[in-house]
């Protein structure tokens, strides 16, 4: 069933209008997410409907005054249809997830809303679904989130000390906050970064220090919210491509980072193509896999990984001998 289909709307319209006598057609159309023209067509259709007999007293009667509507006879259609199982699930599970996400809305209000909708939905209550253990948020991150939230509300710029994992560096930036996002239980500040001159997502748990500035947040007019439909990571056109072979212990990489799975190889190994913006990040990733991933291309990447490992071994040997003296 399509929720935006015409039948659900036709069945909901009369009770909706009964609850709002004299509502403007434009406002009702907005609530139903249709054009005022479509809404008028729906009303004309309902006007032709009614109870057996279909005489003047049996038909649904509406009175139009200017651009407003009043239901004068409802023909017995005065309450909305109950929620379907799918509707109750989608709504109640979303609310439960909301209650488990700190700092979004008052969790108590969410729980009250859940109780009321469950009571009204009656038998359509979703069973067999549990939402728990929402966001694993440290005390420091909670503090960061609160500060970011108040900066957003007050529309103030922020000074942050941020750890960029991709470059393994800490930088100071002044940013103009745009949104606070919680995606897959991880919190992000979306902001215009004056240093990078672009919209960036900052993971809250990587903001080491934060100061709310006196100056207003002024993201430029062309700053667009990040499209999150494919998740938080997004390949950028300026990236390089590498081909890796992952041993079974390193297969999580293919699950964790966006990449293209090329071939399943013997022994449970997987060949992937992966994009990366920063070679030093890629070298760290592969080093961290401790020999469970081999670089097939580019050759320079494989060489860089081996060189770093060799340098580390040489330095470790030196350090050990220094200590043993």
């Amino acid at each position, binding site marked *: 069933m399509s929720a935006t289909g015409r039948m659900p709307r036709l069945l909901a319209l009369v009770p909706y209008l009964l609850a709002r006598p004299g509502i403007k057609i434009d406002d009702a159309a907005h609530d139903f997410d249709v054009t005022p023209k479509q809404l008028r067509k729906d009303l004309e259709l309902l006007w032709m409907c009614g109870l057996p007999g279909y005489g003047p007293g049996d038909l649904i009667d509406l009175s139009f005054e200017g651009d407003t509507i009043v239901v004068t006879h409802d023909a017995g259609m005065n309450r909305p249809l109950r929620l379907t199982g799918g509707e109750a699930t*989608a709504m109640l599970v979303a609310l439960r997830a909301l209650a488990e996400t700190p700092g979004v809305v008052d969790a108590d209000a969410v729980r009250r809303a859940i109780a009321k909708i469950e009571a009204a939905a009656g038998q359509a209550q979703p069973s067999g679904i549990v939402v728990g253990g929402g966001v694993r948020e440290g005390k420091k991150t909670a503090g960061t989130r609160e500060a970011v939230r108040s900066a957003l509300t007050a529309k103030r710029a922020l000074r942050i000390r941020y750890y960029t994992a991709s470059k393994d560096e800490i930088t100071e930036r002044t940013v103009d906050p745009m949104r606070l996002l919680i995606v897959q239980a991880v919190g992000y500040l979306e902001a215009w970064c004056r240093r990078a001159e672009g919209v960036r997502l900052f993971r809250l748990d990587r903001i080491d220090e934060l100061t709310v500035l006196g100056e207003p947040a002024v993201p430029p007019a062309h700053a667009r919210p990040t499209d999150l439909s494919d998740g938080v990571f997004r390949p950028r056109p300026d990236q390089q491509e590498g081909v890796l072979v992952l041993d079974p212990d390193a297969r999580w990489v293919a699950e964790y980072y966006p990449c293209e799975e090329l071939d399943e190889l013997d022994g449970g190994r997987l060949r992937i193509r992966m994009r990366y913006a920063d070679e030093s990040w890629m070298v760290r990733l592969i080093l961290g896999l401790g020999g469970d991933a081999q670089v097939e291309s580019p050759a320079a990447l494989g060489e860089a990984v081996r060189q770093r490992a060799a340098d580390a071994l040489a330095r470790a040997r030196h350090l050990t001998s220094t200590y043993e003296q």
Partner: protein
Amino acid sequence: MSTARAERLVNLVLALLSTRQYLTAERIRGIVPGYADAASDEAYFRMFERDKTELRELGIPLETGRNSAFDAIDGYRIARRDYELGEIDLAPDEATAVGLAVRLWDSPELTGEAQGALVKLRAAGVEVDDQAPTVVEPRVRAEPAFGPLLAAVQAGQAVRFEYRRSGSAERKIRTLEPWGVVSWRGRWYVVGHDRDRGAPRCFRLSRVTGKVDAFGPPGVVERPEGVNLLRMVSASSSEDPSAVTTASVWVADGRAAGVRRRGRVVGRSDAGGEEGDLVEIALFYPESAADWLTAHGPDVLVLEPEVLAKSVFSRLEAIAHAGGAR
């Protein structure tokens, strides 16, 4: 849907809602406008069957029964108490939560369902602004397996699906009596009795590959009394971390900011002529700490504990030698 059919369906709903008597198909044909146009009996029954299916898909509880023992065939009616949404009134902060919840799903299918619920809540008189600007935007992603698995749980039906374990290429068909779908730390799991293992198991929905196949009669799967689904999932995923050990590492000057921000500088030292800090770090997972420290190559050297230093050393050797072999 054509206007004529929409009009006929609305009239059918109104007629069936207003009657206490069961109306036979023949009687409905006679009183509900639109059916009189049917060219033949056969055309009418086809039309009526399609309309009944449509009503059921909309979630309308269509009752069948006979008014008396003398009736030869079943008739139809809609019981108002089963049709109508209960009374509901939301306080402004509750309505705000509902407005946000509708936007929570990262799945067009579930967003559509949530919006369907919103249409009905509004029709019940609740004022909800689902476009109000909000400072926090939470998103919940649902994998394709979510819908079919939840449906199977609610129907009490067994399922078969292809599943890939973490760190393994092998995809195995698993047969599960599903007890529930659980969200834990932003990920979805299905919990139930694994028929192949003969034991309770949790499966991550993101590792279910391909289609979920519900089979067998509905109503056979029963969740055992007193089972805590959430605890089953949280016990199988990692517990809250507490530091198990402290490591002492050398960090080259100006390098490895990620290691530095997790530790505390306790002294200075040089390694092969390179100046650096001695840093102490609390470690939570020694195994993944070895991976993490190895990643920094010559910028971070482990001094203590020895087992960690060896672990990093052997990883580096594996990488360096793999290079030699190629």
